[in-house]
């Protein structure tokens, strides 16, 4: 394990409030998803269909992107293409300058986080108004999202209250979550209505109409995107769906998997800029299609990961995420999907710990609405890390030693028999300390070995 990752995990495990905060939200999400899935007959078949829709799109992605581009252009939007995060940020900044933007209202977008858009806007001296309540909270705290649906999941109500009191012009007086949300509503509304540019991501890009779909519960996307002169969309190229009915199927899966609702409160399809006679809407609409490693993922064995619709169910159900929260992962995307995506985006050398921070219990794959084989993809990264020699010398030599014994069965059995004997000498029941494994036994006990090993019993059984 790298020192940086170990330090982040240690900090997360030692944080007295983090686990409470994560548990409150992830636990609720897990329970609500279960109810929603139980109320949907054929949910398993619906997952299979959702996976097939995404596979079809990924297999024909070039053709669908060209189709989307043609239809969005026909509707009056301008489509831009970016191979890298830097190119995408440069396009957005150039558009903001063209619009002479002093402030931009941003509706939560994980792709925006992935390409470093908040940082790029700050560098360019453009005021950024995060309008999603959770993004607003972490903007005030100067932090990064810790979950893709609930970016401020790691914050308790007490921490949010302190942040709002320090920065809102007329903060809440009553210490309730409703009063805190009301304080943010008052604080953000004027800022949103005064923004020069609205920036969003996309939940879906609809190829046959050129529409861009956003999904929110708060209505902040619409309030951020309708008043300004310009609407900029940044979207990953894998967000394409062939048509509106395909989007409908995936929306049914998305909301149930994310929040347990049959549908999120606001599902909006934006097709081009303001039309003649319209009383509101932006004069310009720009869509930036971002690759940032996706074509390489498709080529190099990670096409299944491009099915992901960013619902967050995998992390809500992950035993590791529930212990350490999202920040310990160190990337834009946490949890199981993040452990697959981060090595593809940031490089395996910098993130080889993430595929190892997994028990392979398979829960993520069971709840994934598009059936991504996350454990298989994580194992693929482990194997690649080994092949490329990224594992540290201690792990390599330890495994080499084990392999040397394992290929010599008699010697191996003699060695394990000796080890078992000495472990039995240390006492029965549970062992609270083991030589060379102090790190493991610091937090838990090891069961003492049974009086007879499996091999002993097996041999006895054969003799009978």
């Amino acid at each position, binding site marked *: 394990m790298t020192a940086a990752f170990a330090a982040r995990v240690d900090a997360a495990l030692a944080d007295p409030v983090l686990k409470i905060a994560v548990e409150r939200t992830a636990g609720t999400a897990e329970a609500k998803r279960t109810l929603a899935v139980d109320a949907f007959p054929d949910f398993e078949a619906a997952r299979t*269909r959702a996976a097939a829709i995404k596979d079809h799109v990924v297999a024909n992605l070039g*053709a669908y*992107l060209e189709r989307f581009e043609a239809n969005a252009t026909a509707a009056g939007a301008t489509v831009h293409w970016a*191979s890298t995060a830097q190119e995408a940020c440069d396009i957005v900044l150039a558009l903001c300058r063209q619009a002479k933007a002093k402030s931009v209202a941003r509706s939560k977008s994980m792709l925006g986080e992935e390409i470093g858009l908040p940082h790029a806007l700050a560098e360019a001296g453009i005021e950024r108004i995060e309008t999603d309540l959770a993004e607003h*909270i972490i903007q005030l705290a100067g932090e990064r999202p810790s979950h893709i649906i609930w970016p401020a999941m790691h914050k308790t109500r007490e921490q949010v209250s302190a942040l709002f009191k320090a920065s809102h012009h007329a903060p809440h007086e009553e210490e309730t979550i409703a009063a*805190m*949300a009301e304080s943010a509503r008052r604080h953000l509304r004027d800022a949103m209505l005064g923004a020069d540019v609205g920036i969003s991501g996309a939940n879906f890009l609809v190829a046959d109409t050129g529409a861009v779909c956003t999904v929110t519960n708060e209505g902040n996307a619409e*309030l951020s995107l309708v*008043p300004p002169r310009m609407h900029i969309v940044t979207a990953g190229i894998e967000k394409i769906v*062939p048509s509106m009915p395909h989007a409908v199927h995936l929306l049914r899966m998305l909301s149930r998997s994310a929040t347990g609702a049959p549908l999120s409160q606001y599902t909006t399809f934006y097709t081009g800029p303001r039309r003649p006679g319209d009383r509101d809407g932006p004069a310009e609409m720009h869509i930036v299609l971002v690759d940032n490693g996706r074509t390489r993922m498709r080529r190099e064995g990670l096409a299944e990961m491009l099915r992901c619709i960013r619902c967050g169910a995998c992390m809500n159900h992950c035993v590791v995420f529930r212990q350490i929260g999202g920040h310990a992962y160190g990337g834009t995307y946490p949890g199981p999907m993040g452990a697959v995506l981060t090595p593809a985006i940031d490089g395996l050398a910098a993130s080889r710990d993430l595929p190892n921070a997994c028990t392979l219990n398979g829960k993520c794959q069971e709840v994934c609405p598009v059936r991504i084989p996350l454990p298989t993809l994580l194992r693929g990264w482990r194997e690649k890390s080994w092949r490329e020699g990224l594992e540290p010398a201690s792990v390599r030599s330890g495994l080499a030693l084990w392999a040397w014994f394992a290929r010599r069965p008699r010697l191996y059995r003699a060695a394990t028999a000796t080890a078992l004997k000495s472990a039995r000498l240390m006492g029965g029941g549970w062992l609270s300390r083991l030589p060379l494994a102090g790190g493991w036994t610091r937090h838990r006990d090891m069961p003492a070995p049974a009086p007879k090993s499996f091999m002993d019993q097996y041999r006895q059984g054969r003799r009978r």
Partner: protein
Amino acid sequence: MSARDAILAALGPASGDDLDRAAAALLIDPERPPVDPTQLEETFAARLLLPSVAASYAAVAGFADVPAAIAAYCAEHGLPRHLCAPPDPRLDAADWSGIDRHLDPAPDEPLALAVAECGVAETGSLVMRTAPTAPMLPNFLALHHVVVVPRLVAYLEDALPTEPMPRGYYWITGVSGTTDIEGTYVRGAHGPRYLHVIRLISEN
């Protein structure tokens, strides 16, 4: 090479299948929560009461009855008879005496009226589209949002536009809400805190 050319080159040619036929095959008999077509009114009204939707509901005959329904809603909630309403000719034809209507929403607009294209029994969604007679912003600024629903359909698919897409096509499924602080549900996050549906029974 431009980014566009680089991305398309990296993706290579399509699989060679007939795209439209393959895409259509993925939609045959889709799984969805069952809706009894003979019970659309009851199902829709029940969906509006779900905690995540949390809308109130009134049924009247037609557009001519909308002003009276608005007056009743204002009385119930202690609101002045003063609302932001779209320039929709079907509304204009009604008798609005005693109710003050304006077109442009205030930043803290207390009450806005809109006409939905239809309601969806599957989810309790209100299907909206922008047009010169249907602005979008008032529907998100208002604290109280009242929506007239002239027609019902069973499923979301039944509500999809058949003609070219309007600029904004959107489904409202409940009041603005958030669970961003400790997963606790709060209504009225940025948009309306109250949603009231006026169902026009005889328009269907």
